[in-house]
């Protein structure tokens, strides 16, 4: 801590080679190395050091709102609690797949001590990075196992994993040990405002809370550049999709089929305002399901009555039911005497999507893109 302050209060402008022996001042000011310097290279090095130092001067004189580095101590307001960070965490624990994937997208695998709670497999592009991180369990972890990795920061996706009603841990458990905690903004909409601790279901989900989480993480870990890049990337991709599909006529209706216990059982579908509804709106349409519940179960009769223009079948990693697999779902759609008569099925407007995209996570937009690709190929209007 002291060395960081030293770095700030004593701008490197006044540094000379003698100060090159200064210790590591933190990740973002890891400039000075304790190394013996060959006399012949000393001059060249001094110039290089001065150049870097000047740049750093400008940086160090910036404020905490600087886009490129966090000024610590950083105070974040999260779910009604204020957390103060004195340095970027080095041994973070991510509880929840989405939280972990956000951190991996921000390239923080070397700062992640462990993760837990993975309902599906990790995104293929993050597989290699994830392999470097210790996995506590894909199910709900225990408090002791989290503490066993000696964390200095714990971030969680769901109230089930962290919160007053959680069986895993409460925020006080960590704060009493001097460990900061963070709960995904999407799940801590104050209960007084909404009727439901999972956030409002009355309005269509959008990416704003996700962007806030990414921004918070980027600030905490002082990787704002990566965070902004990620957010911008997602925003661009969303805008691109909207643009491409806005012109389409007809405001097509979508049904997002998650899974069913058996072909004759009611189907689990994405609700009106859920992430599925968001995907539908991005793709220029709307969710045919009118239930405001996140995961309603509907009969095939209702689906036939809704007569969706597009059916999106989810592909799941888990193996609980035969219909988890996308192929099985498509098979059912084509073979069932009533359902196969649906226009969407006959026209082949059945598309496959990663099941995890139906949850309001970083996978939602890639899921939309997955569907968009197939929609374009099929030439849907």
């Amino acid at each position, binding site marked *: 801590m002291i060395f960081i302050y030293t770095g700030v209060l004593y701008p490197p402008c006044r540094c000379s080679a003698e100060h090159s022996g200064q210790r590591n001042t933190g990740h973002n000011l890891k400039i000075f190395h304790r190394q013996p310097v060959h006399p012949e290279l000393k001059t060249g090095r001094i110039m290089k050091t001065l150049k870097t130092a000047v740049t750093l001067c400008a940086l160090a004189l910036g404020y905490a709102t600087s886009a490129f580095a966090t000024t610590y101590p950083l105070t974040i307001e999260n779910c009604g609690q204020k957390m103060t960070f004195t340095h970027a965490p080095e041994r973070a624990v991510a509880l929840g797949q989405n939280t972990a994937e956000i951190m991996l997208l921000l390239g923080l695998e070397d700062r992640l001590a462990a993760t*837990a709670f993975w309902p599906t497999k990790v995104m293929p592009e993050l597989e290699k990075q994830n392999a470097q991180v210790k996995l*506590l*369990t894909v*199910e*709900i*972890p*225990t*408090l*002791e*196992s989290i*503490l*066993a990795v*000696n964390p200095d920061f714990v971030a969680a996706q*769901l*109230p*089930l994993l962290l919160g*007053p*009603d*959680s*069986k*895993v841990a*409460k925020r006080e*458990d960590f704060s*009493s*040990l*001097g460990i900061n905690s963070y709960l995904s903004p999407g799940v801590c909409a*104050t*209960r*007084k405002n*909404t*009727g*439901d*601790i*999972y956030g409002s*279901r009355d309005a269509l989900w959008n990416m704003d809370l996700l962007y806030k989480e990414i921004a918070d993480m980027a600030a905490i870990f002082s990787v704002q550049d990566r965070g902004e890049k990620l957010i911008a990337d997602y925003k661009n991709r969303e805008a691109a999709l909207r643009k491409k599909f806005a012109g389409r006529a007809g405001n097509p209706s979508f049904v997002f089929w998650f899974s069913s216990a058996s072909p004759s059982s009611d189907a*689990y579908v994405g*609700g009106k305002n*859920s992430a599925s509804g968001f995907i539908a709106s991005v793709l220029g349409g709307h969710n045919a399901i009118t239930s405001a*519940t*996140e*995961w309603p*179960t509907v009969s095939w009769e209702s689906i036939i009555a809704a007569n969706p223009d597009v059916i999106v079948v989810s592909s799941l990693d888990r193996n609980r039911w035969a219909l988890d697999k996308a192929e099985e779902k498509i098979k059912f759609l084509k073979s069932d005497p009533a359902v196969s008569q649906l226009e969407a099925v006959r026209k082949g407007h059945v598309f496959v999507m990663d099941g995890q995209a139906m949850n309001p996570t970083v996978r939602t937009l890639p899921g939309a893109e997955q569907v968009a690709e197939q929609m374009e190929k099929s030439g849907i209007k």
Partner: protein
Amino acid sequence: MSAGKLTSKLIRRTVLTLASLLLLLLMAGFAVGVGELSIPLQTTFYAIGNKLGLTAVPLNRIHETVIWDFRLSRALVAACSGAGLAVCGVVLQCLLKNALAEPYVLGVSAGASTGAVSVVVLGLGTGAVSLSAGAFTGAFAAFAFVALLTNGARGGSERTILAGVAASQLFNAITAYIISTSANAQQARDVMFWLLGSFSGVRWPEFTLVMTVVMLGLSVCLWYAKALDAFTFGEDAAASLGIPVGFIRLVLFSATALMAATIVSMAGSIGFVGLVVPHVVRYFSGPLHRPLLLASAVVGALFMMLADIVSRTAIAPQTLPVGVVTSLVGVPFFAAILYRARRKL
């Protein structure tokens, strides 16, 4: 009674009391020392010593907190819960004259699930009410419903059991309805996980509460131990011995409902303890209620502490629901008792 007999009785009681305390201490110590985080035995001792003010050795902060704030509080809550559930079982089996009676027979567990779901899914209480408080309210609502149906415990044992079954069905149906019409998959999963039974979420405040409630409940039940004995041959026999049957039923049902509701609201639905422990203890202690209540409380406490230890270490880093452990451990015990009883007769 002769002086010799009195002394031997006194000696027997003292020995049993001391032995029980020792066993409880040992089990608590075992609970504190065992866990995923491997903490050296010395640290365990010093951590407790530090908190009690007996020692002042500087220790790893995480270790100290895990031992005192997490493991010890959890073990003590488990002990109180086990004792409470066992005592409830004893009293209900006597009053309802049914060997299969257990703490949730009056709808407590079903009511708790409805309360929990109302808070989590419907958002009742607009965030000011915690899940536990909701569960407790639901549990008591179910009990009130039963009391209403049986006209304030005026009805006989059979009628009370039927009312309890009706209440359980009703509240379970309400829970299912709420979940299927309003909950998202995550909420449903959350509530289910919560209901399965686990001591993971408890800390010192929960201990204070459950300790108070169980001590109170146990005292009330012990106060009426002789009255419970009078119920051995049924309510008419008890009435003919001067027992105010309606009043006693109301008081004791309320005491058991309070204990059961408190325990369910903090640890979920843990089955089998309230059903099996009274039978096992009765086999050794006989049917008289004063020794039965005390012994059941001790055995229940020991059993639950052990079950909790198993639940958090068996499939680490995951937690096994305590109810699963109690059933798995309890069933063989129960079978053994039945088998031996069969041979005797």
